[in-house]
């Protein structure tokens, strides 16, 4: 009986030692500050697949229309605006001066 009690005590003691050791192993370090410093804001970036995402270089602004077409557009704009100005000079009113241009060059 004494032997049984002795064995039981030893088992309980062994379990207690194991529990303390386990607790010590899994406890965070006491030197670490309890309040963590604020982390820098994480910038959400698009998901990357297979390779690093590389920002494509911006190509230089290409002329959208040939210069001859652009010059023709400018000339048409001048004609349209001159016609609008002629209407104003013929009959000067605020409405005619500020009438919306029909020129596609600026619309």
């Amino acid at each position, binding site marked *: 009986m004494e032997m049984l009690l002795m064995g039981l005590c030893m088992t309980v003691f062994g379990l207690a030692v194991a529990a303390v050791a386990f607790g010590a192993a899994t406890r965070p370090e006491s030197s670490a500050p309890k309040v963590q410093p604020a982390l820098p804001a994480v910038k959400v970036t698009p998901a990357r697949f297979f390779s690093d995402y590389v920002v494509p270089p911006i190509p230089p602004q290409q002329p959208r229309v040939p210069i001859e077409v652009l010059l023709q557009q400018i000339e048409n704009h001048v004609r349209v605006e001159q016609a609008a*100005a002629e209407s104003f000079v013929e009959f000067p009113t605020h409405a005619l001066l500020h009438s919306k241009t029909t020129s596609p060059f600026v619309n």
Partner: protein
Amino acid sequence: MAHELLSGLSPAEVGQVLTLGTKVTVSSGASLFRLGDPADRIFLTERGRIRLTLPMQVRGREEDILIEEKSPGQTVGWSALIPPYRFTLSATASVETELIALSRESLQACFETSPAVGYKIALNLAVVVGHRLQLVQAMWLREMQRTVELRSA
């Protein structure tokens, strides 16, 4: 052909002025005068069309941009009668164009001998110049208005 510069003159007076002129023919695309040239002749358009242009930078190139187009009966080159007597635009024929060139010297001599003719032509010239001013003024304001709207958007 009724010329705006000679409006209100009697047929005899018109004849008197036209005898001072010389006919000029400009082939299609050819230049009548260039911006900055000395202006010693004013032109009455008889036939064809004259493009009045100013230089503008377009994509790094200097291009002549149309300002106004003159048709038969209209006057070209009034800088010849207004100091500093230099053309403030370039003039090019859109198609083969005929004009009557009147030299400042001969016109001034005519005005001295016939002040009534000089008076009427001066009034007509004021109409031509004033019309250009009013047109450009209205066009400038419309462009400014668009710029303001773009900046306010």
